[in-house]
């Protein structure tokens, strides 16, 4: 009988242990707070206990969609400090209809603040996508597009970066831990101005991590190829010719200036990207856009 009872108790204990793992971290935080309150451990000891407990479980995935939204807004504000907006509403309207249509057919159609697109007034060949769904494309990059299918490819590539979360992955691991720990350990009380100041500093670091990668260093080559693959899949799904991407890259190759601080610096060479796309099974055939599509494309872009 006793043996039977023991046997029955074992899975029960295992189940209880499993359930308690999820609450381990909050239990640590609570126990630390109690220890600190009782004067058993000092404030700095308490801090280090909390940080150790947090360090093992923090990842950028833990930022809420709302926090990601605020990160994205500031990344966008940095892009707009470097490049000015192209104020012509006609082309912005067209790029938004095309871009938002593509985004809605993507694997991540609904995000916190929605997808929004803007043309930048620059001859550089560049494009940026913030984690929150803001997409920027320069006039220089628009000039590499000869048809709507090519422009759709540019926007689909940027949507690919968003759904694959490349921006958020650019945040340094230590920064993620620092940010989430500050937020979590202050969870029980109202933020004072000191905490807001500390958090603002961490926020600034997060923005710098993302913009340094996005604007200066560029993502890993593998991330660019991944975004190209996502773009090809999305173009097919919606009904655009994925060869638009190949044609855009071919035009970009001619337009890129060696030593430039744009795609020349941050992206793999167009030829390498084309080779990688063709490895994925795409056989090149010229894009034959219907006249009605070509007309609206030319009309919208005008003298870009």
């Amino acid at each position, binding site marked *: 009988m006793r043996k039977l009872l023991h046997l029955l108790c074992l899975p029960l204990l295992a189940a209880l242990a499993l359930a308690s793992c999820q609450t381990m971290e909050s239990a640590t935080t609570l126990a630390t707070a109690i220890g600190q309150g009782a004067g058993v451990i000092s404030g700095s000891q308490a801090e280090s206990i909390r940080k150790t407990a947090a360090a093992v479980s923090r990842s950028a995935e833990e930022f809420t969609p709302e926090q990601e939204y605020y990160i994205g807004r500031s990344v966008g504000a940095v892009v707009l400090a470097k490049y000015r907006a192209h104020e012509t509403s006609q082309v912005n309207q067209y790029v938004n209809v095309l871009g938002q249509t593509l985004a809605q057919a993507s694997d991540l159609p609904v995000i916190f*603040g929605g997808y929004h697109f803007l043309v930048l007034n620059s001859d550089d060949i560049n494009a940026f996508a913030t984690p929150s769904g803001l997409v920027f494309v320069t006039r220089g990059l628009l000039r590499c597009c000869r048809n709507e299918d090519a422009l759709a490819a540019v926007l689909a590539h940027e949507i690919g970066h968003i759904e694959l979360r490349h921006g958020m992955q650019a945040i340094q691991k230590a920064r993620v831990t620092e940010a989430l720990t500050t937020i979590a350990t202050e*969870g029980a009380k109202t933020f004072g101005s000191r905490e807001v100041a500390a958090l603002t500093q961490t926020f600034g670091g997060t923005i710098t991590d993302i913009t340094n990668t996005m604007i200066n260093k560029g993502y890993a080559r593998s991330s660019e190829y991944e975004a190209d693959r996502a773009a090809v899949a999305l173009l097919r799904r*919606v009904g655009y010719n994925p060869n638009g991407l190949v044609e855009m890259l071919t035009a970009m190759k001619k337009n890129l200036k060696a030593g430039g601080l744009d795609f020349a610096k941050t992206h793999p060479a167009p030829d390498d990207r084309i080779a990688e796309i063709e490895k994925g099974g795409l056989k090149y055939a010229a894009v034959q856009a219907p006249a009605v599509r070509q007309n609206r494309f030319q009309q919208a872009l005008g003298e870009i």
Partner: protein
Amino acid sequence: MTRLSKIILIGVFISLCFVFSGFAEPQKTMSVQVKEGQLRSVPSFLGKIIANPSYGDRVAIIEDQGAWKKVAIGGVQGWMHATALTTKTIVLKAGTQNVRTSATGGELALAGKGFSEEVEKQYKNLNHNLDYAWVDRMEKFQVSPEQMQAFLKQGNVVPAEGGAQ
């Protein structure tokens, strides 16, 4: 078997049922994880919007259909896209209408914490060169599903196989 053993045995059995039913129970409610959710009459972006649940609102899950979930909130039933929902709990500060919240691991906790409007404001004050005015203007660029549908139709954009959502 003694009477005491029987009682213990029954007790253990009931505890086991309780613990395992907790694991086996399917997720019945989810939280809205976008600023303004859209509850539609049919499982499609072209479906009529019948309600706009807010960030953090809990919805009861009735059924799944591909990437769409039939949900109920406040006595109204409709469809929401799965990417607008999360299994995490989002706890808003009582009495506030805005969407300021923060994350603590599996549970999204109290409002007013984390990277919020307040932190953005502080950051903006420290970095006067940043251009938030155009970010705000960008957020106003809205395209309706009807406009999207008309755009695809007018441009004769048709997938070779399958279909766009």
